[in-house]
């Protein structure tokens, strides 16, 4: 008998976060992530931990910033328009170097858009939606199990590098139920980690801030952030390549990648050799691995539920070595495996 439990993506990610030792959750309702906030509203207080339904996403992320500045393990979750509102504080957090986990269950945009699953926030997540020079670690899970595993680990990664970490899912991942194996429960992480604000008793006062006024100080700080991200790129970049022998390489992330996997199976039945290259960290993007994988293909197809955002990173990686084609499905909808299959057949001419 399997020890797996059947859970919706939103609830499974929330539970994984609690098991990672979460001390505080701050959020605001928005579809399609509502089960996340509801789950937290019950389970966090039941464990005597902090839960606040904030008055806005702006307030929620600033509560996260304040709580994260103490060194405690904290998070928020939202969906695209709400994440847009959070960008100011995320920029501050990156500048001030505080760890936190932020979950974006993406929906269709721009604007209010719709509530369907979308991948339209790729650029926002990987380029930094706030002001200034900064990058975050962005995981793009493809299944509920992977979302659970990546989120559980994301808190450690966030603490290790003192950086906000994004979990970029979409409405399909949040709403879908799959059987998952939940990780072991860790105790609540409430310490100051040696740098957090905990009261200046028997030590010098600590300041958590992004303001750097002295001449040359901000310049140096920005380059330090770049060096930190180089270390992150080296140690934390993750991807999946499904095969070693292929003519067509499909590059896709998250839900699109799942759909591509079904298409690849259909193509195999028809004698067409295709493989999937799936960035698991879309930031840092696995440029080198993709460049290597693309060399073995005759063509690369980028499939995304947007109008072509990761496409840019794929082109940068492939550097013109083979033709790169694109199929997109924006507007809160997903393409079918059959559509990908048809596109690849068309590419093969």
């Amino acid at each position, binding site marked *: 008998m399997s020890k797996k439990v059947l859970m919706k993506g939103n609830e499974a990610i929330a539970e994984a976060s609690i098991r990672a030792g979460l001390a505080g959750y701050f959020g605001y309702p928005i579809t399609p992530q509502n089960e996340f906030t509801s789950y937290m509203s019950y389970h966090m207080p039941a464990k005597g931990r902090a839960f606040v339904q904030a*008055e806005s996403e702006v307030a929620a992320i600033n*509560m996260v910033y304040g709580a994260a*500045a*103490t060194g405690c393990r904290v998070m928020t979750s939202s969906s695209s328009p709400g994440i847009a509102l959070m960008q100011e504080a995320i920029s501050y957090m990156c500048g001030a170097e505080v760890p936190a986990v932020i979950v974006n269950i993406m929906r269709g945009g721009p604007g209010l858009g719709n509530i369907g699953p979308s991948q339209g926030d790729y650029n926002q997540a990987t380029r930094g939606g706030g002001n200034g020079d900064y990058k975050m670690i962005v995981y793009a899970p493809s299944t509920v199990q992977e979302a659970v595993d990546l989120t559980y680990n994301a808190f450690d990664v966030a603490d290790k590098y003192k950086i906000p970490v994004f979990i970029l899912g979409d409405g399909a991942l949040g709403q879908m139920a799959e059987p998952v194996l939940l990780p072991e429960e860790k105790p609540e992480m409430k310490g100051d980690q040696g740098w957090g604000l*905990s009261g200046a008793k028997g030590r010098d*006062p600590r300041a958590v*801030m*992004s303001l750097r006024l002295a001449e040359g100080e901000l310049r140096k700080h920005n380059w330090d952030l770049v060096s930190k991200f180089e270390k992150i790129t080296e140690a934390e970049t993750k991807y999946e390549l499904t095969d070693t022998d292929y003519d067509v390489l499909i590059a896709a992330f998250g839900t699109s990648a799942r759909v591509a996997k079904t298409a690849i199976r259909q193509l195999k039945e028809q004698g067409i050799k295709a493989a999937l290259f799936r960035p698991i960290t879309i930031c840092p993007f696995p440029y080198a691995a993709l460049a290597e994988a693309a060399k073995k293909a005759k063509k690369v197809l980028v499939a995304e539920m947007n109008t072509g955002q990761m496409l840019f990173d794929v082109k940068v990686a492939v550097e013109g070595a083979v033709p790169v084609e694109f199929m997109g499905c924006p507007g809160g909808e997903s393409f079918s495996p059959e559509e990908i299959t048809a596109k690849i057949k068309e590419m093969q001419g």
Partner: protein
Amino acid sequence: MSIVFQKPESLTEKTTIFCPGCSHGIIHRLVGEALDELELRETAVGVAPVGCAVLLYEYFRTDIVEAPHGRAPALATGIKRVRPDLTVFSYQGDGDLASIGMGEIMHAANRGEMITVIFVNNANYGMTGGQMAPTTLPGQRTTTTPTGRDCAAHGSPFRMAEIMGALEPVVYSARVSAATPAKIMKAKRAIKKAFQNQKDKKGFSFVEVLSTCPTNWGMTPLDAVQFVEKDMEAYYPLGVFKDADGGDK
């Protein structure tokens, strides 16, 4: 030899860079004295605003986090909720608290967050060069109200201490003035009370301090003090607007 006067332990040795005649230095000192006297320095975490008080971490010998503009009450909420053992205060100006941060202060107060809020009202945006603030007086000239604040066009000034006092969960809301030594002594008592409430786990406490801004008002420090006493105190009455302990009204 006995020491009769010294800097509070809660403040650093740094000399402030506030303009001559500005009340911020006095208010910093009052907060420092209150933390000292209540023995709260070692548990204190201050939340700095965006504005003239942004350098809070230079002047306070306590842990400090610097908030995005107006969001200090949200940060304070986050800190206090995960670490209820800490003494959490925000120190905010009028643009920060009553304009861009109006949402955050209203909701933090209305949740009854166990924090202390020090609100410095000098009736204009100081750091950006003297623009109209939500507390700029009717008719008052600023760089964005060159002919004086026209309430028909810009709305009326917010009386924050009264607004806070009207919220059910708030345990203490007072308005004090930093204009004269006697008033400064009163201000000290209000600030101390606001921290005492947090120490006693009573709830959300708010102190509005009417403050000078001679540079941007285009006044001498003495004229600025007179402006606070004659003009500001006329629009913004001093007093306690809420005291759950039933203290002096």
